[in-house]
C-alpha cells in the first residue's frame, strides 16, 4: 500500500517545442483509484509511464510512498502493469496461469497457493483453478490476467487504456469489474483512458490533462458540477455542456435577444472583458413557458433511452455563423412534440457556469 506523488515532474522529448508533461504535481492517496484522462497527446500515458519507469523524468521527481523512484529501473518499483499482455498457457491450470511468475521469483509453493487462492476468491474463479484455460470465456480470461497482477501484491497497479482492445460489451462489464475489484483490494491504482465516461464512472478522483498540463483533479461530481476552466467544462459530460459566447450586459450575459441572468459579483470578475462564455449542461436547459429565452433553431430531437435530446443552433444566424457556432443541446423532460418550423426558446433551469474568454478560467 502506498501513495504516489508526482512533484514538478516533466518529460520533454528531444526536439519537441513543448513538454509532453509539464511540471505535473499530483498526489494519489493510499488505495485511491486515480484516472488520468484527456484527449490524444495530452500527456496522460506519458505520466503513467514516467511512474512505471518507461519514460525518463527530465526534471522533478516521483515518489511511491516515501521512496523516490525517479531513477529506479521499472522492475525495482514494485508496481504492476495490468493487462498489457496476457497469453494464457494451454497446458497449465488456471492456478498455474495466475501464479507462475511467483515461482520464478522464488516464492514458496505454499505461499503461491495461498495468494492464488485469495485472488481466485476475489475474482470468482475458485471453481476454475484446476482447469485448463481453454474453457474460459473472454471475461474470465481478463480476470485471470488481473489475477496475475494481484498475486504479485504490488504497491501500485497501473492500467494504460486496458479496455481499448475489447469489444463494446466486454468493455462495459470489465469496467464495472475492475472498479469493484479495486475497491475490495484497496490497492492504489492509476488508470489511463481517453474516454471521459470511463473516467467518470471508475475513478475515485479524475485528473484531466491537456497539452501536458494538469487542468483539474477532483472527484467526478466536482468535475462535473464545477469545472475549473473551459476545457474541462467542454471535455467532461456527454452530451457536452453548452458553451455559448455572449456580451456582458446589465444583470447577465446577452445571447441573441435574451440576457442570461448572471450574478453581479460574477460579472465583476470579468475585469474588463466585454464578452464571456456561459456554460449550461443539457439537463439544465429547458423549454421556456413564455417568449423569453435563448432562441434556438431545432435540427433534430433524438430519443436516447428514457430521455429525449433536442439538438439545434442559435436562431437568427447566417449559414456560415451557424456552422461555426456552438451546437445547442437540451434534455427534454416532457414528451410534447416540438414544432421545428419556428425557433424554440430555451431557459436555464439549473446552474449557469461562467468562464472568462481571455483566460478560459471559471468565474462563477
Amino acid at each position, binding site marked *: 500500500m502506498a501513495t504516489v506523488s508526482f512533484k514538478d515532474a516533466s518529460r520533454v522529448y528531444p526536439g519537441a517545442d513543448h513538454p509532453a508533461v509539464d511540471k505535473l504535481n499530483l498526489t494519489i492517496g493510499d488505495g485511491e483509484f486515480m484516472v488520468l484522462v484527456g484527449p490524444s497527446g495530452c500527456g496522460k500515458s506519458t505520466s503513467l509511464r514516467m511512474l512505471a519507469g518507461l519514460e525518463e523524468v527530465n526534471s522533478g521527481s516521483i515518489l511511491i510512498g516515501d521512496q523516490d523512484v525517479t531513477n529506479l*529501473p521499472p522492475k525495482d518499483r514494485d508496481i504492476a502493469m495490468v493487462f498489457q499482455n496476457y*497469453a494464457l498457457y*494451454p497446458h497449465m491450470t488456471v492456478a498455474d496461469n495466475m501464479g507462475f511468475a511467483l515461482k520464478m521469483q522464488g516464492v514458496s509453493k505454499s505461499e503461491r497457493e495461498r495468494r492464488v487462492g485469495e485472488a481466485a476468491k476475489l475474482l470468482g474463479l475458485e471453481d476454475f483453478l484446476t482447469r485448463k484455460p481453454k474453457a474460459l470465456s473472454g471475461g474470465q480470461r481478463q*480476470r485471470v490476467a488481473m489475477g496475475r497482477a494481484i498475486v504479485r501484491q504490488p504497491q501500485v497497479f497501473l492500467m494504460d487504456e486496458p479496455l481499448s482492445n475489447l469489444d463494446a460489451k466486454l468493455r*462495459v462489464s470489465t469496467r464495472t469489474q475492475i472498479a469493484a475489484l479495486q475497491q475490495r483490494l484497496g490497492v492504489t491504482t492509476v488508470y489511463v483512458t481517453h474516454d471521459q465516461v470511463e473516467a467518470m464512472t471508475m475513478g475515485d478522483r479524475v485528473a484531466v490533462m491537456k497539452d501536458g498540463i494538469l487542468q483539474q483533479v477532483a472527484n467526478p461530481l466536482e468535475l462535473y458540477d464545477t469545472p475549473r476552466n473551459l476545457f474541462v467544462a467542454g471535455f467532461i459530460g456527454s452530451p457536452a455542456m453548452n458553451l455559448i459566447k455572449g456580451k456582458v450586459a446589465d444583470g447577465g450575459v446577452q445571447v441573441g435577444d435574451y440576457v442570461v441572468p448572471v450574478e453581479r459579483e460574477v460579472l465583476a470578475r470579468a475585469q474588463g472583458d466585454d464578452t464571456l462564455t456561459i456554460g449550461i449542461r443539457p439537463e439544465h436547459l429547458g423549454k421556456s413557458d413564455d417568449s423569453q429565452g435563448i432562441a434556438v433553431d431545432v435540427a433534430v430531437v433524438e430519443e436516447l433511452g428514457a430521455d429525449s435530446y433536442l439538438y439545434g443552433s442559435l436562431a437568427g444566424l447566417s449559414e456560415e455563423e451557424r456552422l461555426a457556432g456552438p451546437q445547442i443541446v437540451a434534455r427534454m423532460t416532457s414528451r410534447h412534440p416540438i414544432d421545428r418550423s419556428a425557433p424554440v426558446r430555451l431557459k436555464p433551469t439549473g446552474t449557469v457556469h461562467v468562464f472568462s474568454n481571455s483566460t478560459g478560467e471559471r468565474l462563477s
Partner: protein
Amino acid sequence: MPRFLSAKPDSRLLPLPWNVPLDRWPREHLVALPRGISRHVVRFIRVDDEVYAAKELTEPTAFHEYRMLQDLHRLNTPAVEPTAIVTGRADDRGRPLDSVLLTRHLEFSLPYRSLFHSGVRQETVSRLLDAMVVLMARLHLIGFLWRDVSLSNILFRRDAGAFAAYLVDAETAELHPRLSDGQRSHDLDIAIVNLFGEFSDLEAGQLLDESLEPEALVRQIEARYHALWSELTGREEFSSGELYRIENRVRRLNQLGFDVAELDISTAADGSTVQIQPKVVDAGHHSRRLMRLTGLDTEENQARRLLNDLDTYRARTNQGDVPESVVAHEWLTRCFEPVVTAIPPHLTGKRDPAQIFHEVLDYRWYASQRANREVPLTDAVQGYIADVLTALPDEVTGSVAQGDDHARHQLNPYDPSEGYAEDLEAPPHDPWDADALDPDTEVLPAVLDIEALRRRQKGK
C-alpha cells in the same frame, strides 16, 4: 459489405467467406499449421499456392498492427509482411464481426513449439534465445518498443547452424524516435516473464526435455541482451596510442553481423585519450555482402557460411588477385547452383536453397572425415539427398506432421482457441457471470449517467 485495405491487393481473397467468424470457416480454405499461443483466433488461409495468416481483432488494433508491421518492413527489420485488413464484416444476421488482419505466411518458418515437439537440446534452446535477443536488440535500435516479447510472437527460420527470428505480433508495439533505458528494460522484463511462462507450459505439456529447467533457461536472456547491447551501442575510451581499437570494434561488430554506418570518435582536448561510440549500426553485414556479390538473398549466418565457402574456393583456385566479384560469379555457377539444381523438385519444400547448401557443406565435411579424402561436392549432394534430405519433414509451410484422423478431433494441437476434451463438461460456477451482461443486451452509446453517479456518491 466487408472492406479491404491493402498495399498489394490479392483479388483471390475477396470471395472468401468473410461473413463467417474465423473459427467456423470451412476446412477447404484452411491449412493446419502449427502456431504460437494467441489471445485471438488465428487461422491459416490457402488461396492457390499462397498461404496467409488471418487474425481476428478489433478494428483499431488491426489498423495499428498493420501500420506497425509496415513500418518494420520499411525499416528492414525481420517481421511478417502485412497484406491486408478486412473491416466492416458482419454475419448473415447483420451482427458485426471483428476485423481480420492478413499477413503473408513466412516460408520455411517454424513456430518454437514445433521445434520442441520431438525433444530439444539445451544448445538448440540457447540458439533460439540468441536469435530472440538479436531480434530484440535490432528492434530496440530502431526505437521499436514491443511490449509483448515472447516466443509465441516470433517465427524462427533455420539460419545455417543457428536461427533467425522474425516478429509476428505487433499489437501492443510502439515506434519511438529512441527508446529510454527504462523502456528497454521493461521489454526485457516482459520477455523473461513470458518465456518463463512458455517454458513452464512446455514442461506441463511434457514437451520440454527433463534436463531443461525453465528458471535456468530464462536466466541467460538478460546477460545475453546486455552483452549484445553494450557491444552495439557502448562507449569505449582508450589512450591515443591504441587507435587500432577502433578497427577492432568495427570487426567485432561485423562478426556479430552488424555494419557500422556511423561511428562517433572524439578526442580529449589534450589529445591523450580517444572515445568511440557506434551511432548507427545496421544488421545484415554478411547477407548484404553476399547479396552484392551473388544476388543471393539469405539469412545472416547462411551468408557467413556461403562467404566462407567462397573465400575457400578463391584460395583453392588460386585467384587471390582476381576481383572478388568475378570469383563470386564463378563460385555461384560452379559450386552453389549445381548443388541447388541437383535437388529433385519434390524435395525443395524441405529446406530453402541456402540452407540446403549449408547442410551439404556440413555433410561433405563429415563424409570427407569418414572417407579420409576430400569428397567432391557432386557426390556429397547425392549422399545428402539420400541420407538426410529425404527423411526431413517439409518446412516450406511449416512442419505439419499430423494424420487426418487427428485433424478431425482438433485442427491444431497448439492453439488454445480450439477444443480440449474437457470442453464437453458443464462449465464450473462463475459468480461473476450473474453480473455480466446478457449477450443480446444492446450497449448504449457512451452517455454519462450523472444521476447514477450522484446516487453512488451519496451511498458512499
